[in-house]
């Protein structure tokens, strides 16, 4: 799916990483590791196409991502630090917009996804009335709505309770075993039994030095 070749990034004249190469194929569960400030989020944002300040090349299905931008964006689900949930809108309004950007309308699926995440009855309540964890769940409801094969997730377990973490891990596992791919950062030890690929930005830098 995604090939990363010779990727390098500097920020404020400090090398975050260089000569970074790896591939993400169907069934890959890849964890980016590194200390705070090692460039995990920057790397994910580069992969997602939000940050263009890098050297090296990103390829989607063998072609440079920039040339197949439409296909790549169709195939990508990005979950950032911020939940992408507008607090003044209701979960239903938020998720309707998300679905529309993905090219479909499906209220039944939205309600189903919200119910699955324990938000039954919250569809029409403004998000500012909900807790941080519940807002995070609204954000995660998008996982049930997207059909993108590649998930890029930055600290997806933030603000979730233990049950929420377990459910999210199961969802990630299901996605990977179903032929999807997940690239994520987390400080939480993954319980998954699936083979885990690790890219460690700290180790990479030590080698470079």
């Amino acid at each position, binding site marked *: 799916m995604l090939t990363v070749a010779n990727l390098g990034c500097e920020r404020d004249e400090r090398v975050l990483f260089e000569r970074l190469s790896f591939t993400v194929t169907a069934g890959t569960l890849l964890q980016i590791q590194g200390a705070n400030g090692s460039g995990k989020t920057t790397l994910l944002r580069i992969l997602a196409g939000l940050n263009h300040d890098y050297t090296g090349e990103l390829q989607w299905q063998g072609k440079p991502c920039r040339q197949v931008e*439409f296909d790549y964006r169709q195939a990508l689900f*990005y979950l950032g630090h911020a*939940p992408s949930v*507008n607090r003044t809108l209701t979960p239903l*309004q938020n998720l309707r917009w998300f679905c529309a950007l993905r090219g*479909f*309308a499906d209220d039944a*699926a939205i309600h189903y996804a919200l119910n699955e995440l324990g938000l039954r009855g919250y569809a029409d309540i403004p998000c500012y009335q909900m807790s941080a964890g519940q807002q995070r769940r609204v954000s995660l409801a998008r996982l*049930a709505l*997207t059909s993108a094969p590649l998930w890029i997730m930055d600290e997806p377990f933030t603000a979730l309770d233990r049950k929420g973490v377990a459910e999210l891990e199961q969802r990630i596992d299901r996605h990977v075993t179903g032929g999807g791919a997940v690239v994520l950062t987390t400080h939480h030890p993954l319980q998954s039994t699936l083979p885990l690929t690790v890219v460690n930005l700290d180790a990479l830098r030590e080698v470079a030095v």
Partner: protein
Amino acid sequence: MSGGMSRTAIGLGGALGATLRRELQLAFSSPGRIVNPLMFFVIAASLFPLSGRFEPALLGTIAPGVIWVTALLAVMLSMESLFRGDYDDGSLEQLLLAPQPLYFHLQMKVLAHWLVTGLPLVVISPLLALLLHLPADGYAPLLIGLLLGTPTLNLIAAIGTALTVGLARSGLLLAVLILPLSIPVLVFGAGLVDTALNGLPMGGLVAVLAALLVMAGTLAPLAIGAALRISVQ
């Protein structure tokens, strides 16, 4: 992985319609976005007659300029809400990553913003014209000018807003960036009223204002998009 059988595909039009609807929902769920620029417009313009002893005739001659300048400032103050919330909560990233062209989404966002902040200014402007003793012949050109000019101002200001959305306090910087670019609209808009009051034909100036709107409507979204991509990095 879909949730059921009820999934309906919607095209580009559906996606853009959804963005427009979302922006309107946002505006109506926080009415301050609509009411504050309007209140500013009314209060700021009514300060002029209070600030001195103006003869009605003199007030009438400065009325077009006063209304246009305060409308411009009201537009400027309303812009903060266009991208700020989306930037803070990450929705902007989702918009940038949407498969559809960003260009059209941005047109929808600015259109929605104009509908809830610019159009009310146009609608209430006759009230201010009355307060400022604008001669009767000036009402039509004032309305036409504002109708064509306020969306242009919104589009121009949106470029500056997109550039400064990553900064914590962008209010004054935005004004410094945008006010110079707004001068043509101001000159032709206020000039339109003067022209009409002097009994001259207005066709030429209306055409210029319309041309500015078309130009801003087609070119500004490109600049807004580029600015947003820089701000989000």
